[in-house]
């Protein structure tokens, strides 16, 4: 394996949690709901995932528990924003604060416990292809899940009737309601899907990427996932591009740090955040305004 292949491999692993969380949030936002609490759901997934994996000794159970934890957090969000029609921005912030706190309590007994991460699974034949094989097809199961999510969500949103209904709810909930679609039910399912994805992304962090628990280990990745959705113009394929771009920046700054680039490490560490801001500005500049779902962030209260 060449050095270039090795770098690409690490870029893909660093991007995977961003991509999984961004795809989930993309579906949520397409249905017209803005859930800013990705960071909170993600870190709960990380904490519950490793807690369950250590307690039961099974990584698979850990992943399942992480997904369920993300969904539970999302259900809490849905209860307030859909059931009680509260301000989505504020509840999303509350979810982020709550998740960071609760994950600290859940994870406290597991601080310092090391366990073996989930290993890579090479796909037979495909992984033998020169260059592409080792980079794309000798990865851990989460990487494959991320590929599948991008393709699956893309197909669902633009090739199925249910996907059309979901997008209709996001564009104009009054019209969708008038056509007899259950706007709140659609949005609830979308929010749950977003929670499951964020939980899965969290599990990736604590079970594969750095297989131990540290408080606040998501380090803003949930927020970067939100930025990726904007960057992607709410299109799954572009979200993949965005996620790999951000993953690339993260890895490059790590390599620059270890190569002894004469810049303060703090400046290099700030790069992913600065690039996020830059990308948000450039995207808005090039696209010239919002292309998001028209009903994004607006609460819907059905009249009888």
């Amino acid at each position, binding site marked *: 394996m060449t050095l270039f292949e090795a770098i690409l491999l690490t870029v893909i692993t660093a991007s995977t949690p961003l991509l999984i969380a961004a795809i989930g949030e993309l579906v949520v936002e397409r249905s017209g709901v803005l859930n800013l609490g990705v960071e909170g759901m993600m870190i709960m997934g990380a904490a519950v995932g490793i807690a369950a994996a250590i307690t039961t000794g099974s990584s698979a159970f850990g992943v399942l528990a992480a997904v369920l934890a993300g969904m539970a957090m999302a259900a809490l969000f849905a209860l307030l924003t859909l059931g009680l029609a509260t*301000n989505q921005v504020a509840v999303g912030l*509350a979810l982020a604060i709550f998740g960071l706190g609760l994950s600290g*309590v859940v994870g406290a007994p597991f601080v310092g416990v090391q366990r073996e991460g989930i290993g890579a699974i090479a796909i037979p034949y495909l992984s033998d292809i020169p260059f592409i094989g080792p980079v794309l097809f000798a990865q851990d199961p989460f990487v494959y899940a991320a590929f599948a999510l991008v393709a699956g969500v893309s197909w669902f949103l633009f090739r199925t009737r249910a996907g059309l209904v979901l997008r209709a709810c996001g564009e104009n909930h009054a019209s969708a309601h008038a056509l007899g679609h259950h706007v709140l039910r659609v949005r609830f399912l979308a929010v749950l899907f977003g929670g499951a994805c964020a939980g899965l992304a969290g599990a990736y962090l604590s079970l594969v990427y750095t297989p131990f628990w540290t408080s606040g280990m998501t380090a803003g990745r949930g927020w970067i996932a939100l930025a990726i959705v904007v960057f992607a113009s709410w299109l799954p394929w572009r979200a993949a591009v965005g996620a790999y771009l951000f993953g690339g920046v993260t890895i490059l700054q790590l390599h620059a740090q270890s190569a002894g680039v004469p810049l303060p490490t703090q400046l290099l560490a700030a790069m992913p955040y600065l690039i996020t801001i830059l990308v948000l500005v450039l995207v808005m500049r090039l696209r010239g305004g919002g292309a998001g779902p028209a009903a994004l962030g607006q609460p819907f209260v059905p009249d009888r």
Partner: protein
Amino acid sequence: MRRLVLERRAETPWALTLASPLLAVGLTLVSAVLVFLAMGRDPLEALFVYFIMPVSDAWGLQEVAVKATPLVLIAVGLALCYRSNNWNIGAEGQFLMGAMAGGWLAVATHGTGAGAWLLPAMLVMGALGGALFALIPALLKTRFGANEILTSLMLVYVAELLLDWLVRGPWRDPQGFNMPQTVVFAPEATIPLLMEGGRLNLGTPIMLLVVVLAALLVARTLKGFEITLVGEAPRAARFAGFDAKRLTWTVFAIAGGLAGLAGVLEAAGTVRMLQPGLSPGYGFTAIIVAFLGRLNPVGCLVAGVFLAITFIGGENAQIMMQMPLDVTRVFQGLLLFYVLGCDTLLLYRVRWVRRAEA
């Protein structure tokens, strides 16, 4: 079949605007009991440590005021932002930027015996530093349409890393045994104490003054009306000739300035140096304070005192009951959920109705 529906209220009863935050606090206390039971602790003892002990003696009350000062200062600014639909969530970064801007003067003049001009200059620098830092997301929002929630939050990480670099690099105390911190500020660069031997400093009266000024701004001035109108009825505000973009700049500058002032007061008053752990998350907790205070300056004062109590209660519980410090953040998150949920009571009437026959 019967089901719950929400019906928009024509007008909000006055009593409900007061009852809903109280209900939220009550629900948080009930949840706290359940959390303590789940953790296998005696809920009565824990409630006492969290909510009663901090206010049961003079020393505790002083600590509450010291902690409430930055919370209220930041929250008052955030309340103005949120009222006008400007989602500044980067107050934590603006707080640190203010501390760094003011702290720079203290570090640069250290050992020169600077005169009485130093302290006022530090406060001005702090407010300016916070305001300029807050204008970055405001500029990106008005000029490019970039989402201010994401940009202001990303800048928090940038400010944290900048502070980390400064106190480990150029501003590190040469005699500090390699600790990541600046020199201890000289007496002329320290906020004066209100009384000998206490911890209360001049920051608390400054905070009270800001609350009064902000309350007057909101209730008595055209600017205050503009802020509320742009948030609640942007179309009407446009017809009235109010410039939403300029208002975005104004509220971000005020919020950043107040957060920066809180930062320099914390650095020069309570901590007396710059160090990476300068803020225990004041900028984020202040978001909760702003909402619990109903985006009203006087409300923020009451809410800030309450959240300051939970901060100190959390520290007490960590020492006395070995509870993780994060339990406090769980309560704070829950409190915000309840506050927002109770707000539905204000806007809507919740009613059971018979499902219409198909």
